[in-house]
């Protein structure tokens, strides 16, 4: 019987994606340290964790997973990469460990009846792209104004970058805009040709679906080819400090989705500073605490911890939860505004509540704008359009089940 709740932490602090991977990983670790220091664990259950460097590579990710999955008290995995998520999606059901892919992963895995072990909390690439189109439409003065317009998707040429395409095509049909697809070969340091093409086709808007260095490179190329930055919209993985910092003024006016809030004023961040950094136990540099991806890491870990707490409510307070029990907790999570405020997440996110059928739990996001020095939230919350999403998810998950010769979960299974 395990005595501690073990959080395996897959992360990458080296390689092309290190600038973005590092604050994220730091946030995840710091939150756990803080919970231990402040609360003495989850209802008295101490948290332990171990980090494993994946370098964003699928095979190393799988190795890390295999290494950490059989640790006593293992909780859940957040693979930090779509590629690793794909690989683990095959393995998790066998090992009975849930995967949390907050804001990434497989969009169809929102369907908990088909993907019992995947939890794309708070948003998927489909909700993200949907919201972005809504926002662009709004800026244009209404979605109907998009008719005849041209929107270019500059995307990371990987499953991550390709995911939004079906939804965008759907939206393009609906609103009559033209969708141009420009893939960028990973890791994305070479985009000259891409932006020459942008210049040639003169799209009205460009959507940036990048990660790691690809983002800052895109912004620099946009500047070099004179594409107006205020017509450039990024996904929430292209909207953090490392993406724009070294472009500085050159990225002014660039807008990106904000999946979560940030800054140091929220209570949870203050707690982290107090209980972790002031004791000299911070994982990273202090001035990075509260940055966009750092905060996202904190939120991810909070959701994990709360899922454990929720599971304990059912399976026994003060006990170490198994992967299966955590899965139930994740599936039955309900954090309303009040609870969020109490946890210190006021303004960082919206309430989330999951169910057997909906593993996402919330599909809200805002838009932020870079002013040359820092990010500012510049829009209200948007929610992805259920009407569009639902059928896509349904057909997608059906296809998945058919391919795998699996069957949908029975309603009764939801009780377990």
């Amino acid at each position: 019987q395990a005595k501690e709740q073990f959080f395996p932490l897959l992360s990458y602090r080296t390689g092309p994606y290190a600038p973005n991977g590092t604050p994220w990983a730091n946030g995840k670790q710091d939150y756990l340290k803080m919970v231990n220091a402040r609360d003495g664990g989850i209802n008295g259950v101490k948290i332990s964790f171990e980090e494993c460097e994946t370098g964003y590579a699928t095979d190393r990710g799988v190795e890390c997973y295999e290494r950490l999955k059989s640790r006593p008290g293992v909780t859940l995995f957040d693979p930090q990469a779509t590629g690793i998520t794909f690989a683990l999606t095959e393995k998790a059901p066998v090992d009975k460990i849930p995967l949390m892919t907050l804001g990434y992963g497989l969009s169809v895995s929102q369907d908990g009846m088909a993907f019992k072990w995947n939890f794309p909390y708070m948003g998927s690439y489909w909700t993200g792209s949907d919201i972005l189109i809504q926002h662009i439409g709004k800026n244009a003065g209404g979605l109907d104004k998009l008719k005849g317009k041209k929107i270019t998707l500059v995307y990371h040429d990987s499953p991550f970058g390709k995911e939004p395409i079906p939804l965008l095509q759907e939206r393009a049909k609906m609103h009559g805009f033209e969708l141009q697809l420009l893939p960028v070969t990973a890791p994305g340091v070479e985009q000259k040709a891409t932006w020459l093409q942008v210049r040639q086709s003169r799209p009205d808007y460009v959507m940036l679906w990048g990660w790691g260095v690809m983002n800052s490179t895109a912004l620099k190329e946009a500047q070099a080819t004179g594409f107006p930055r205020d017509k450039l919209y990024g996904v929430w993985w292209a909207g953090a400090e490392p993406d724009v910092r070294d472009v500085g003024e050159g990225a002014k006016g660039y807008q990106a989705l904000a999946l979560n809030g940030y800054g140091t004023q929220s209570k949870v961040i203050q707690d982290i500073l107090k209980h972790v950094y002031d004791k000299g136990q911070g994982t990273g540099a202090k001035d990075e605490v509260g940055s966009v991806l750092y905060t996202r890491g904190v939120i991810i870990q909070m959701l994990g911890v709360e899922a454990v707490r929720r599971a304990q409510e059912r399976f026994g307070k003060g006990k170490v939860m198994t992967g299966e029990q955590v899965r139930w907790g994740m599936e039955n999570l309900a954090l309303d505004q009040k609870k969020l405020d109490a946890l210190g997440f006021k303004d960082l996110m919206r309430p989330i509540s999951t169910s057997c059928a909906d593993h996402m739990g919330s599909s809200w996001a805002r838009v932020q704008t870079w002013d040359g020095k820092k990010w500012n939230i510049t829009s209200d919350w948007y929610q992805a359009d259920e009407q569009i999403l639902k059928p896509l998810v349904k057909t997608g998950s059906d296809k998945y089940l058919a391919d795998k010769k699996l069957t949908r979960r029975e309603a009764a299974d939801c009780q377990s």
Partner: protein
Amino acid sequence: MAFFLETLIGGLMAGMLYALVALGFVLIYKASGVFNFAQGAMVLFAALAMARFSEWVPKWLGTDNLLLANLLAFVIAGACMFAVAWVIERLVLRHLVNQEGATLLMATLGITYFLEGLGQTFFGSDIYKIDIGMPKDPVFLFESIFPGGVLVNKEDVIAAAIAGGLVILLSVFFQKTTTGRALRAVADDHQAAQSIGIPLNRIWVIVWCVAGVVALVAGMIWGSKLGVQFSLTTVALRALPVVILGGLTSVPGAIIGGLIIGVGEKLSEVYLGPFVGGGIEIWFAYVLALVFLLFRPQGLFGEKIIDRV
């Protein structure tokens, strides 16, 4: 038409930048017969050093004179590259005299990993900025002739000029000086070179140093364009087709190869890409190089590969 010109110019400029990295490969190969896999890592290392020192120097000295800071940073980074060259000679090359190409290649690979680790340990693995005052915004030429003008990047033009200058300098060095001749001798036969008193150790330090400085210049320019981050090592992969197209042993070949590859890949991506789904420039560059090789197996300007019984 204007767009074609733009693409062409863009390709030429990109080509010059590849050439700059390719130059590093050529130098070391030509002068010691080693295919230096670590060139990409050296570019990264140099750029990281440059970026961080230009950040730290003002802090240490308390000035905010950009020029001074950059100058000092350049000198310090240059010194770092010298140290790297010296250590590599001492710890690696010296012990591998007269070994086969594959072994040396592998050794440079070890060096690659080492430098990547070392660079990130010392300098961090975030994205850093090199601001050497390069103009970032585009200029538009011939606006009277073409609507919208022809877009040209001043930054690219400056970078291309620097690359061109370096190449001319190094070509002269190789063809005309005693040391240049000695370097070529070393590349042909380590042992024979030793036997007639060419000090391999010193030669290697010199060559790796020069390659280090070339890497520094390349790192500075690329870094100023793209930001300095681990992925900078991947520009080495873009430079490889340039190296073989121009010929592993030819300094001017690096430039010509660079221009051909640069233009070829940009034109193909822009004009061919859309029909096949895009993202073809990398393999197109390699296939282009391959096609040239079928006609000239030693590259356009490479020394003939000698096989004689």
